[in-house]
C-alpha cells in the first residue's frame, strides 16, 4: 500500500506501523463517574466497519508523525490522510 503523507508525499506503507481505529485518540476523562465503563469501551470495543475506516498509522521509518488515514476496508482505497496532531487539536476545540 501507499500512504500519501501530507508533508512527505506518497510513501510505502511498509515505513509505517499500524495501531487501529482513530477513536483511540478520544481518551476518556479519568475522573468521570463512568470512567471504568468509558475506558472499557474506549480501549476494547470497535466499530470495525466494512467500508470507510479512520485509522492510526505511525511513520516510524519517516518523520515519526502519527497519521489519521481514511481507508476503505473492502477496497483498501485511501481517500484522506491527516496529521493526527491536527485532528487531536481540532477534537479538543470541539469539546
Amino acid at each position, binding site marked *: 500500500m501507499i500512504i500519501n503523507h501530507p*508533508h*512527505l*508525499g506518497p*510513501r*510505502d506503507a*511498509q*515505513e509505517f506501523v499500524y495501531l487501529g481505529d482513530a477513536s483511540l485518540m478520544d481518551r476518556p476523562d479519568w475522573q468521570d463517574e463512568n470512567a471504568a465503563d468509558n475506558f472499557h469501551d474506549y480501549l476494547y470495543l470497535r466499530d470495525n466497519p466494512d467500508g470507510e475506516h479512520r485509522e492510526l498509522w505511525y511513520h516510524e*521509518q*519517516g*518523520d*515519526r*508523525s502519527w497519521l489519521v488515514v481514511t481507508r476503505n476496508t473492502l477496497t483498501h482505497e485511501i481517500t484522506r490522510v491527516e*496529521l493526527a496532531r491536527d485532528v487531536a487539536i481540532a477534537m479538543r476545540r470541539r469539546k
Partner: protein
Amino acid sequence: MSEYTMTALPALGGYQASFDGVTLQEVTATAIVSIAIPLGGDDAMAKALQDAYGTAIPRAGHTSLANDGATRFLGMSSEQMFAVFDHAGAHALDVIAGNLKDAGYYTLQSDNWVALRISGPRSRDALERICPIDLNSAAFPQGKVARTTMEHLGVIIYPDDTDSFILLSGSSSAGSFLHALETSIHNIL
C-alpha cells in the same frame, strides 16, 4: 590532567573504497544536532535561523543551506530538523545552542549516526537494490531529504551533489549497513 586519554573512533574506522563507477566513504568529523521547535515557537525559530544562518526552516522532507554553505538543515518533521556541519569533537551542541539561543531544544545526535557518502554514475543503480525512495534526479533533487528503511535499517538519505548521496544510519548497526551497501555494489558490477 588525566592519565587516560580519550580518542574518537569513527563507527567504521574511516572506511573508504572505490568500485567501477561507485565510490563509498564514511564521512567522519560531521556533527549532527537535532533542533526541536517549541510548540508555537516557529516564528522565533525562523527568526533565529535567519539571523544566525541566513536561511529558513526547511519543510519536512526538504533541506536548507546556511548562507555560508557550511551548515545544512534537514527537515525531519514539521517540528524537528537536523543541523549537519563539519565539526570534530563532541561539543557541536554548544555551537548550535550558541547560535540559536533558546529558540529551540537541542540534542546531540552526531554519534547516533554513521554517515556514508555514495557517489559516482552507478550510485543510483546500487541504491535501487535497497532504497524504496525514487532517487531519479527529477523526483529527488538536491534540497530534498528522506527518512526510510533499507535492509531492515532506518536510513536518512539526501543528495549532496550530482550522482552523490549522503546516507545516515544507526551507528550501532553501521557494520550491517555498510555490508548492505557493499553487497548492492557487488551485485550491480
